């Protein structure tokens, strides 16, 4: 019979294993994100303002107001990769929006997960289209945590990314 340990139990075990002293790695990552990532992003964005809209994949950064929300994005290099392959760090009204890249070079976000867009800016705008009035993004793992933590904890957060 293949029905062994329940997914809930497995998930809980992994969080417990990751947590150490009662603080899960996700929580630790969130705390880290709240300081490090936001601070790291700020100078890049400030230096590149003002920007025209509609930057392509190689655009490097964007900063605009879309449907009443401020969207900011900057491409951050990953060690060992060319800049064009860097991750995007994006915020909507200051709250991180996790973007993921598809193998074909297009982008999807935590908000809009079952389709993709040619550029990070388009993926960000599409996410804004879906955020309800008066709502803000929640700092939901995996979020930018994956990029932030990857160098230090590769494979560690879920215990599955060997």
């Amino acid at each position, binding site marked *: 019979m293949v*029905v062994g340990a329940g997914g*809930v139990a497995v*998930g809980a075990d992994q969080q417990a294993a990751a947590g150490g002293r009662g603080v899960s790695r996700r929580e630790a990552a969130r705390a880290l994100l709240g300081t490090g990532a936001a601070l790291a992003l700020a100078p890049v964005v400030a230096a590149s303002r003002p920007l025209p809209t509609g930057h392509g994949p190689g655009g490097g950064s964007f900063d605009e107001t879309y449907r009443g929300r401020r969207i900011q994005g900057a491409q951050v290099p990953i060690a060992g990769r060319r800049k064009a392959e860097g991750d995007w760090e994006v915020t909507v009204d200051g709250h991180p929006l*996790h973007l*993921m*890249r598809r193998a074909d070079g297009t982008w999807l976000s935590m908000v809009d997960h079952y389709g993709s867009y040619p550029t990070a800016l388009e993926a960000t705008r599409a996410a804004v289209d879906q955020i309800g009035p008066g709502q803000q993004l929640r700092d*939901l793992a995996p979020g930018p945590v994956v990029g932030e933590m990857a160098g230090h904890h590769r494979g560690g957060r879920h215990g599955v990314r060997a």
Partner: protein
Amino acid sequence: MAYVRKDVSTLTRTERRRFVNALLELKRRGEYDEFVRLHIDHYTADGETGLRSAHMAPSFLPWHRRFLLDLERALRRVDSSVTVPYWDWTRNRRKTSVPWTADVLGGNGRRSDRQVMTGPFAYTAGHWTIRVGVTDGKFLTRDLGRAANPIALPTGSQLQWALDDPVYDARPWDSTAATGFRNKLEGWGPGSGSASWRNHNRVHRWVGGAMLGGASVNDPVFWLHHAFLDMQWHRWQLAHRNHRYLPAGPPPAGDRQHGRIIARYQRLPPWDVTPDQLDDVSEIYRYA
């Protein structure tokens, strides 16, 4: 003795009530939100580094099969008569069809903020607060058919197009695979826009709201949708008896997919189970 997963449109009034109540009980205990988290944690896109177990990969089907089994096991601990029903979106296509009735999943979101206002999963009913969501919104949202720019559910012929492919999956084993049953069913088409959204992906988009995002499990229709997809895997197996899960072995060192996908006899995280072991579940459940 195998139990039966039924078409949601055929459930009796009592079966509907017991299914809904078991879900509400898991939610009350906090177990449900762990399923939401698990799904979020295992979404790795194929343009990123790392192992992909749940999406954009051959193990899309066994991963969700096991995920459903875990939910179903939890439901059956609450009420041993309950099984996960499936939503046949090739037949029940209207925004007011089952499962969008007040005695199952409730209806569409309202226009202003997409908040679901009817049925047991409406925030206002008091039993379904979103705690693990993409935004800080506490209520379940839907936008059936995408009101601002309407799209249609995938058709029966599009589903058949996937079922007709005799090969389970094909290189490069990701969202760009042009052939193979798995990606035709998962639904990553070339390009962008409506024409590129197929089968599984297209249904997530048609429901909209919570179902569009990483926390899609917050809408219980997630399970009804994936039960139907799981049934398609079974149908595909019956139609192509000489074909099995691919790849049979892991991609070699140097292959772009080395270490990033799960072959037939490899462990499928987060569980201690292989796609091979999930190939035949006829002793656990069957579809009616």
